[in-house]
């Protein structure tokens, strides 16, 4: 482990200034991912700027029915917030499906979005990885990939994004706000993560040196009836092999509005817009749900050992939508 400097920031402009333009400096939130990566040598920052005590730990109503969530709100506090539980239940479920109680108490909302893939080639500095060492290759494609991407991947990287929280936020059109030395900016989550292409090491559209200050969840009445289901290789404390965040507005047996996002299938939380389009106006039945899943998964390009994910995601979409439709019919 390389020796590093540590600075604690007390306000947002101060944090941004402390980081400056130093490519070897990193913001430290809960440290639940960054510190692991430092121990394994994947990250070797010269300086850490601790942002955990910034005054960004509030969850406030936006007045129009949405929520503004500070970047240093812990995962635990986000999941437990009464308005989150009432208006965006899938978000609470997604957060609680991730990590462990101890980790959720430390992990921050901003850090959760910026966590790195758990691909075992990325986390092992003795192995090649285009994300960690651009140009070194992607051994997962020919090697171990049974939990890798089926959507949106490239020949340069097939890693998946590990966040559960991000999947629900993606379904609900969250917007990321940030600050740089030049001022503030916003990125819809849909544009926050960059396509993999031939630059898998470039993961987000955040400008260099930017600090995430908060997220905004726009009002979404459909989200009040929403659900997150996660499948993993043990009952707890494992990253997803597939997950679905879904919200359905069903009236008179017809889907009026649908929100659908998929986890553990791509380099980012995957908004299933093709499925949403197929669902809107369709009868709320298993056949529609299956057709919607097929519409989304038609683009899937599985590798030899992760083809099961196509079946898994299809089944999950049908199961979760069926549960929501049954709930609506009650």
């Amino acid at each position, binding site marked *: 482990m390389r020796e590093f400097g540590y600075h604690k920031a007390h306000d947002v402009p101060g944090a941004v200034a402390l980081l400056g333009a130093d490519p070897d400096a990193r913001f430290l939130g809960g440290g639940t991912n960054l510190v692991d990566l430092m121990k394994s040598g994947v990250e070797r920052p010269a300086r850490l700027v601790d942002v955990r005590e910034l005054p960004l730990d509030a969850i406030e109503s936006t007045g129009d029915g949405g929520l503004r969530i500070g970047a240093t709100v812990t995962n635990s506090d986000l999941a437990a917030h009464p308005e989150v539980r009432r208006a965006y239940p899938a978000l609470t479920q997604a957060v609680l499906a991730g990590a462990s109680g101890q980790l959720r108490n430390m992990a921050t909302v901003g850090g959760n979005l910026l966590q790195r893939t758990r691909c*075992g080639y990325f986390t*092992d500095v003795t192995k090649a990885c285009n994300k960690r060492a651009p140009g070194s290759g992607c051994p997962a494609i020919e*090697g*171990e990939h049974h939990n890798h991407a089926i959507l949106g991947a490239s020949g340069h990287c097939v890693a998946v994004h590990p966040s559960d929280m991000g999947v629900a936020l993606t379904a609900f059109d969250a917007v990321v706000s940030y600050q740089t030395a030049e001022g503030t900016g916003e990125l819809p989550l849909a544009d926050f993560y960059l396509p993999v292409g031939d630059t898998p090491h470039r993961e987000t559209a955040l400008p260099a040196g930017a600090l995430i200050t908060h997220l905004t969840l726009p009002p979404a009445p459909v989200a009040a009836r929403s659900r997150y289901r996660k499948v993993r*290789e*043990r009952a707890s404390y494992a990253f997803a092999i597939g997950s679905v965040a879904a919200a359905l507005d069903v009236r008179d047996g017809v889907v009026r509005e649908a929100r659908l996002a998929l986890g553990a299938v791509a380099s980012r939380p995957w908004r299933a817009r093709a499925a949403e389009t197929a669902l809107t106006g369709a009868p709320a039945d298993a056949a529609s749900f299956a057709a919607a899943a097929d519409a989304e998964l038609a683009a899937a390009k599985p590798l030899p050992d992760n083809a099961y994910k196509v079946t898994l995601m299809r089944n999950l979409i049908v199961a979760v939508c069926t549960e929501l439709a049954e709930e609506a019919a009650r």
Partner: protein
Amino acid sequence: MTTAAPRSTAAATPPAGAVGTAHTRVEGVEKVTGAARYAGEIPFAGLAHGWLAVSTVARGRIRSIDTDAVLAMPGVLAVLHHGNAPRLETDYIGMLGTRPDPTCTVFQHDRVPSMGWPVALVVAETPEQAREAAESLVVDYEQQPHDIDFHSGRPDAVGLDGHMPAVTGKGDLEAELAASAAVVDAEYTTPEEHHSMMEPHAVTALWDGGRLEVFDSNQGATWVVGELAKMFSLEPSAVRVRSEHVGGGFGSKGVRAHQVAAVMAATVLRRPVRVVMTRRQMFSLAGYRSPTAQRVRLGADADGRLRALEHRSLSLTSTVHDFVEPSAGHSRVMYDADAHHTANQVVRLDLPTPTFMRAPGEAPGSFAMECALDELAVKCGLDPIELRLRNEPERGPVSGLPFSSRNLAACFREGARRFGWAGRDPRPGVRRDGRWLLGTGTAAASFGAGAGPSTAVLTAEADGTFTVRIAAADIGTGARTALTLIAADALGVTTDRVRVRIGDSDFGPAMIAGGSMGTRSWAWAVNTAAAELRERLALGADIPPEGITVRSDTTAAVGALARKERHSYGAQFAEVAVDLTTGEVRVRRMLGIFAAGRIVNPLTARNQLVGGMVWGISMALHEEAVRDRATGGHYGADLAGYHVATNADVQDIEADWIEDHDPDDPVGIKGVGEIGIVGAAAAVANAVWHATGARHRDLPIRPDRVLRAAAEKAPHA
């Protein structure tokens, strides 16, 4: 009672026996308050820290090591490697009857036989400096092609004896199979599995007045002292190994690379040197359970009586040291047949050497054989318990020896009663609870009840208390507490008058905490010494200030034990829920009923048995070390990538035992360390079949495998 007791004798009226009553750990408060010091956290003045550098190629030669750059780094004191390390004696036979694994006799040559092979030790003033330097060390390799491809049918597989003969056989297998009304012929596989105990391997070595002092985390001070003395050509009396508290071992904590490297560094630097393995290093340096590929063929009459049994197991070992995972051993003591053939084979690959891991042989072997019996029960239209009861052997199927006690049938009867087995619908795939299909399964378990020679030292102190000294190891089993209860009963006093000191090679040779033999072996020595001490005290002499001390040695008594099939037994039951749309499997209920001799401390015995069963859930559903074929190294070698069962995976679980009395046995204690895992994975896999109708013969039963099996069945459904 303590104050009233006469000073010169044990209590006149023996108290009610301590053995058999629940007793919390005698060191429990120390452990839960953090006062207990483990090997990696004992403070020493002038301590230096060593960090192992390991190979990044799976096969080759070290061309050069750039030590200069690293020696210039802050705090770095030395870099030991094959070019400058002390020479070791490696031509000897150790306590376990084998030559040392070259993985442990470090830095003696330039060859690299596997990924993660120790190539250097970097020593520095702080662990951070040592780690940074070790990870910066540039080693230039001449890389050679590697072969890590483990699969059945390898033409270079060879029979290897290991701790039991490679091959046993009687009868005409093909003829009996041909004459059988029901036949099972199936291959089962288990993956590479790791011990993954909480406490990593850790050691501090130092020279003190011409004596080598080693503070270590191990499963037997006698074992480690013997190996280190031989390697470094020292008198055994010139080496002292202490191992006060051990955070788990499961077979991997004998002598390993880190202890040898630490002794080298302490010798070169004349300073105390500590070496602790990282979790990732443990995956390549601490040993592991070999994957297995097992073929089982069974033939039975229509009534289920076995005519033919064949169990062939393939495991792997390194190219530098032989180790056999003897999975076929399970069938040698469990079931008889007119034609009975078993074989353990290995293939030598460019991988680290495997080692003993909780229930070696029995854990994977029972998975294959107990699943095959379940398949046979279906073919015969018999209840799987009934099939086993109809095949209870009179004598050891291979040895022909009588059983000392064999209470497997009683375990099944009691287990079936408590689990609610009676009236079970044998049809698969017909019980549903919402999205979950439900099923139940069972399997038999056995594990050998051996003993190893041990010495114990007992002192009657002048204050009326007693001190027991024995080089036992408490690796989390509760051995220290068990020996306290045993000594109290043997001396006829209450436990508060007994202090037990363990984990110190100066107490004399003793059996390791291994093979489920620890408590049985140590109790034997303690009982023997206590009997002699009571005789001495009965003479009525005053106890001098230094106390009265007696010493026992069970070598002759253990050697004189009548040859019999000595085992503990168990019946495992599991209820699972399977979602065929997601592939998720949950073990809702598990019950194990065991016949394991006299249970010393019900509290810690239950803990061990349940722990083994939890590991069985893990083995069935989660555990699997993944190898990257291209590099020959691991993929995801940490506890995020290597899944063990979490609390949420363990729902309703219970272990209990039945009376298991053997009047001819001098100790009466068997062992509970390993039998809990035996058969557990098979019970889960058999329950998955009962739930879904799909046989899972490859572990672990991952969601993708369940989904694939469901897809394969769908066209016929």
